[in-house]
């Protein structure tokens, strides 16, 4: 299994994502100006502040040359995981439904959160069971998930709500406590919390590793 981790100017969680992926497979950095996906089996769009997030979070990164390739890769069923800023980028790029708005508190929040696995059938969550609870850190200012009500109903009906903040753990005002969603096909998943920061007991939880293991299990080593 070969993961590719995108690096935009302003990415800051790319190295952690790389290390997390290397616990379960191979992993390389993909430079935003390149058009070569280097034959990876899965792409991770990591957290950070791509292109400074000037204008609007994730808005400018979607025009990177590499994003055109990722768009094509995703639309052909390639596995893509967007974490935090990566989630914002994928929403802006139209690969995931909805948008991320400023936290209701308008403040940056960094805390460990419990997430409920709602859909354990996606390529990124299949190492979990439905109802599993994952302890993973979240750290963002702009993580309030929003989509119009009819879209939310459709997401729920299609199993595209992948992760929810467990009761009492929602802090950013996301509609229906949504922490992570997928596209209709399920191959593209985005979430605000950071699984790549929860892969070693040293930092308190290894629950984040399950997302990487899920994808790795799909491709023979």
């Amino acid at each position, binding site marked *: 299994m070969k993961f590719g981790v995108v690096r935009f100017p302003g990415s800051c969680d790319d190295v952690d994502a790389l290390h997390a992926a290397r616990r379960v497979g191979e992993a390389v950095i993909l430079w935003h100006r390149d058009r070569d996906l280097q034959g990876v089996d899965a792409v991770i769009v990591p957290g950070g502040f791509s292109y400074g997030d000037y204008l609007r979070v994730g*808005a*400018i990164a979607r025009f990177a040359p590499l994003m055109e390739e990722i768009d094509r890769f995703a639309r052909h069923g390639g596995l893509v995981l967007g974490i935090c800023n990566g989630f914002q980028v994928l929403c802006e790029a139209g690969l995931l439904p909805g948008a991320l708005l400023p936290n209701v508190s*308008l403040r940056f929040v960094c805390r460990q959160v419990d997430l409920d696995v709602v859909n354990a059938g996606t390529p990124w969550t299949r190492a979990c069971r439905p109802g599993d609870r994952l302890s993973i850190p979240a750290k963002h200012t702009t993580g309030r998930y929003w989509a119009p009500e009819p879209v939310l109903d459709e997401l729920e009906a299609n199993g595209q709500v992948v992760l929810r903040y467990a009761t009492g753990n929602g802090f950013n005002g996301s509609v229906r406590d949504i922490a992570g969603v997928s596209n209709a096909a399920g191959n593209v998943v985005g979430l605000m919390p950071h699984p790549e920061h929860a892969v070693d007991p040293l930092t308190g939880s290894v629950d984040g590793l399950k997302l990487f293991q899920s994808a790795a299990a799909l491709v023979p080593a």
Partner: protein
Amino acid sequence: MLIRPKAGILDPQGQAVERALPALGFAGVRNVHVGRLVELDVEDPDRLPAMCEQLLANPLIEDYEIQGTA
């Protein structure tokens, strides 16, 4: 281009401003919303809506309004 949060979407920035105004003695203010202003010179104003749709605004969460002088 005036870019505003869409009606009906919670606007905590507008709410924060709305709460701050009475504290300064400015009573009777309601429905405060904070948006963005993008100023630019453009050769072909017909392209402005596309610019807004594709980059300057996120049409899912924001409305935009184009104002200009020839």
